[in-house]
């Protein structure tokens, strides 16, 4: 078979396989070419929407932090007006032991609040909850004081901020100025700190924010602790179980 014969026969076979393209093919291709531009814009919108949704989900998870949420936290920030401590003369410094280790593991992810008062938050408990331990600790982002009770929770907890570190001791009426220039007054009702607690009542910590914590009242079922701070700060309060304890974190870096 010659080259021409082979080519002719081959092309006839190819023609039989291929036939003619549809007359609409050109139009189909024109529309297909025009389509991707519009489609791509939808992809961008969809991608942007997906990014926003993903960011929202991440944000919600970050704020809610469900894997680390404290399950025993019975307290919530409930700012309420209450009397502020008054300053009075005659300071009464007291010896202070070295800071004790930080409190037992507790959640540390609740938002800090900057309100002037916390509580009073009430809870059920014995007639008098006995303070069994007080401890301070420095942590990343906050300094902490933990007051632990041995026989149940106190009936109410209240925290007040103040623009100085001077507190009034009760029932003596003497004022005491702690280290720092701002303070938190922690008032715990339905508690006493002398039945079972024999530890320090004055912690000079040397931390960056919580400089000093001193018990300023232990009288008629009311225990107060003054906390000297370096500068104003935001704080958070946990009322935790197992054991019952009040945890106060002063935010650092503010």
């Amino acid at each position, binding site marked *: *078979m010659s*080259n021409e014969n*082979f080519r002719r026969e*081959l*092309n006839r076979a190819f023609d039989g*396989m*291929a036939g003619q*393209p549809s007359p609409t093919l050109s139009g*189909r291709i024109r529309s297909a070419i*025009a389509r991707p531009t519009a489609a791509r814009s939808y992809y961008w919108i969809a991608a942007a929407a997906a990014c926003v949704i993903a960011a929202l989900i991440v944000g919600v998870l970050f704020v809610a932090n469900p894997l680390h949420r404290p399950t025993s936290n019975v307290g919530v920030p409930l700012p309420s007006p209450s009397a502020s401590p008054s300053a009075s003369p005659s300071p009464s410094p007291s010896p202070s032991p070295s800071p004790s280790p930080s409190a037992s593991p507790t959640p540390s992810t609740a938002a800090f609040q900057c309100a002037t008062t916390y509580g009073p938050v009430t809870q059920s408990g014995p007639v008098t909850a006995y303070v069994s331990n007080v401890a301070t600790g420095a942590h990343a982002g906050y300094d902490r004081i933990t007051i632990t009770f041995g026989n149940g929770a106190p009936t109410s907890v209240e925290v007040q901020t103040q623009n100085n570190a001077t507190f009034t001791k009760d029932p003596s009426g003497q004022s005491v100025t702690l280290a720092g220039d701002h303070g938190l007054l922690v008032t715990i009702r339905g508690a006493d700190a002398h039945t079972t607690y024999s530890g320090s009542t004055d912690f000079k910590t040397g931390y960056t924010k919580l400089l000093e914590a001193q018990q300023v009242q232990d009288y008629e079922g009311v225990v107060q602790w003054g906390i000297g701070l370096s500068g104003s700060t935001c704080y958070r309060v946990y009322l935790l179980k197992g054991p019952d304890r009040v945890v106060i974190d002063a935010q650092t870096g503010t």
Partner: protein
Amino acid sequence: MSAAVMEQPAQTLARAAQGDQDSFSELIEPLLDPAYRLAAVMLADRGAAEDAVQEASVKAWRKLRQLRGDATSLRPWFLSIVANECRMARRTRWWSVIKVADVDAQDRAQPESYSDLHRALLRLSPDDRLPLVLHFYLDLPLDEVARALRVSPSAAKSRIYRSAKRLRADLTMDEVF
């Protein structure tokens, strides 16, 4: 031929590369018929061939900036995209199964209308049909066949001859080229 006429495809190509759809259509439309014939022979299915050409056209439009060379490179470049699209279409399992069945059914349905050469052609793999289509059916010069196959001209020549020999064992090189 004047320089102005010679420059026209290059300018059209430049406009198309900048996103002008009309310029791209102007360039691609003369290539649709050979592209369709290539796809139809490779896939042995006319509807699928049109789909492959359409998909290849969209890909060519998206990747036009990747085209190397002048406007004369467009045809082998586009045909190589079409061939690749046909390979991808055949790689899909369900598609391949249907295609084999279709070819067999066609072969059985019209045995008298098919020449021995036609039957032999159907028995070739699509990749073996490709150099024959480019060289004999589309009548491309050897260098364009090579660019469409993305091989050297000597390798393209070898592939054409090898495929042709599978159709007719007694073919000589002179009868093929």
